[in-house]
């Protein structure tokens, strides 16, 4: 008997949701413990007894019994007993959405919403999350404990927000999924392809969960899924030979055609309705890239205009930088683009891609000295070995006679 790969991880959110619904939001910890115990017992029992006919129900019953055991002495049990003795949820019943909204409660900081959602709903382990957010495991575990305490203090309820609160709360959930995806993106580029792809896929799966319910099946959810699918379609081409491969040099034959097709499908659905979210614009930019036959033949003016719209909706120095780079790629005077990027130095002082951009632009206006210096600054701020390797290669290309830079 074989289980689907990651069946436990995918089941985790559903089981935890079913438990929190019955135990109440304030027993989130107990629900987590019970879910974990149920999987542990499955690992012991199923090899001997076989996989039960209804694994979901089996897991629920074991987890529920465990929770009841733990609560047996509490007076509280009297109050919840009628709900706990109800039959297991029918197959296909799904409380993950409520769980997601609870984990993305406004009482929590954004970073804790992301971590808690990935732990509770997506079933990722603390070590995986610590690796994803570049913090020690103990720190991450502490954050999760504090986040759950805050949920209790804030009286977070296990329910979908009402119609009035829903748009803002859904926005927070989408931001959380987008952050999970971008964290995956960075890991992917840093050579951690396994965890990187996992985060992107979990964000995708949770987004699909939002589409499965009429209350949350909004156009901006489709837009977010388009961003993730179109962006992650390029993952296989982004790292090669131990170095990060920039878009201009990627082998477009390595892009995942199935993901691109699915992403374009979501982009079309995102266009139905009057909503215009940042995800719509980001998805539009991604689509321009994936549809272009080559870097040179990319529709740069369209990309620049999408960045202009993005700046209206959500101005940020990173968006300004990317807009400038799109203008550069589209053949704009390098000196003019350089003048646009220079003022971003202060806001993005520690951001390696800014210095890489400055280096490209200095080289384009013929200032090899300034270019070399900027590459070295980029190298010093790079967060991963593949990124550093790609910057070293740039320096070598700039000045093949020069002494190689020492490994950072």
């Amino acid at each position, binding site marked *: *008997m074989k*289980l689907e790969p*990651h*069946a*436990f*991880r995918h*089941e*985790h959110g559903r089981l935890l949701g079913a438990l929190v619904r019955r135990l109440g939001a304030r027993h989130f910890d107990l629900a987590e*413990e019970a879910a*974990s*115990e149920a*999987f*542990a*017992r*499955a*690992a*012991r*029992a*199923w*090899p*001997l007894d076989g996989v039960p006919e209804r694994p979901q129900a089996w897991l629920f019953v074991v987890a529920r*019994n*465990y929770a009841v*055991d733990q609560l047996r002495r509490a007076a509280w049990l009297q109050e919840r007993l009628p709900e706990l003795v109800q039959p297991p949820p029918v197959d296909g019943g799904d409380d993950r959405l409520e769980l997601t909204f609870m984990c993305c409660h406004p009482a929590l900081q954004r970073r804790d919403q992301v971590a808690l959602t990935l732990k509770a709903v997506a*079933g*990722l*382990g*603390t*070590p*995986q999350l610590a690796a994803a957010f570049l913090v020690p495991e103990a720190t991450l575990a502490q954050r999760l404990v504090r986040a759950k305490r805050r949920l209790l203090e804030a009286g977070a309820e296990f329910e979908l927000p009402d119609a009035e609160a829903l748009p803002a709360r859904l926005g927070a959930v989408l931001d959380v999924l987008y952050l999970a995806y971008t964290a995956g993106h960075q890991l992917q580029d840093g050579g951690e392809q396994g965890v990187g792809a996992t985060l992107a896929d979990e964000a995708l799966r949770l987004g699909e969960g939002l589409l499965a319910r009429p209350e949350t099946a909004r156009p901006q959810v489709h837009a977010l899924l388009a961003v993730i699918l179109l962006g992650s379609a390029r993952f296989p081409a982004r790292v090669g030979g131990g170095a990060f491969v920039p878009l201009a040099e990627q082998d477009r034959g390595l892009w995942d055609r199935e993901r691109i097709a699915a992403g374009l499908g979501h982009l079309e659905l995102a266009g139905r309705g009057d909503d215009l979210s940042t995800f719509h614009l980001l998805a539009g930019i991604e689509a321009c890239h994936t549809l272009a036959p080559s870097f040179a033949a990319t529709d740069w003016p369209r990309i620049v205009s999408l960045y202009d719209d993005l700046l209206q909706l959500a101005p940020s120095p990173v968006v300004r930088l990317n807009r400038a780079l799109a203008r550069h790629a589209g053949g704009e005077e390098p000196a003019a683009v350089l003048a646009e990027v220079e003022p971003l130095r202060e806001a993005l002082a520690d951001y390696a891609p800014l210095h890489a951009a400055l280096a490209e632009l200095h080289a384009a206006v013929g200032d090899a000295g300034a270019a070399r210096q900027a590459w070295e600054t980029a190298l010093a701020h790079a967060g991963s070995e593949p990124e550093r390797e790609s910057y070293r290669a740039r320096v070598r290309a700039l000045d093949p006679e020069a002494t190689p830079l020492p490994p950072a």
Partner: protein
Amino acid sequence: MAEYMILMRENDGAWGSLSPDEQQALLERYFAWVEQLKQDGVFCGGKPLGSGGRLLRAVDGEVVDGPFTETKEVLTGYFVIEAPDLEAATAIARGCPALSHGESVELRPVGHTG
């Protein structure tokens, strides 16, 4: 041939720190191991043990009960295997997936007088 019992002990709570992916990987190792024991014709049986239960002991002549989850190590299950001698049984027990995630395994002859 003699029967040996493989008793698995878990540090209380060790499982809780595993992610669902890791728990599933463990399940798959148990599947493979049990399958192998069956193929080799040495598998006699086994059962998981739940953690709810009671410990009965005599205190001042009175039998009292209490949950035994107070202890740090919990018996989580057992297998019975068949092997010619303790050495051969040890070789089999070494493959027990419990050992791959920090549990300890105790190997005891069944019914031997020693």
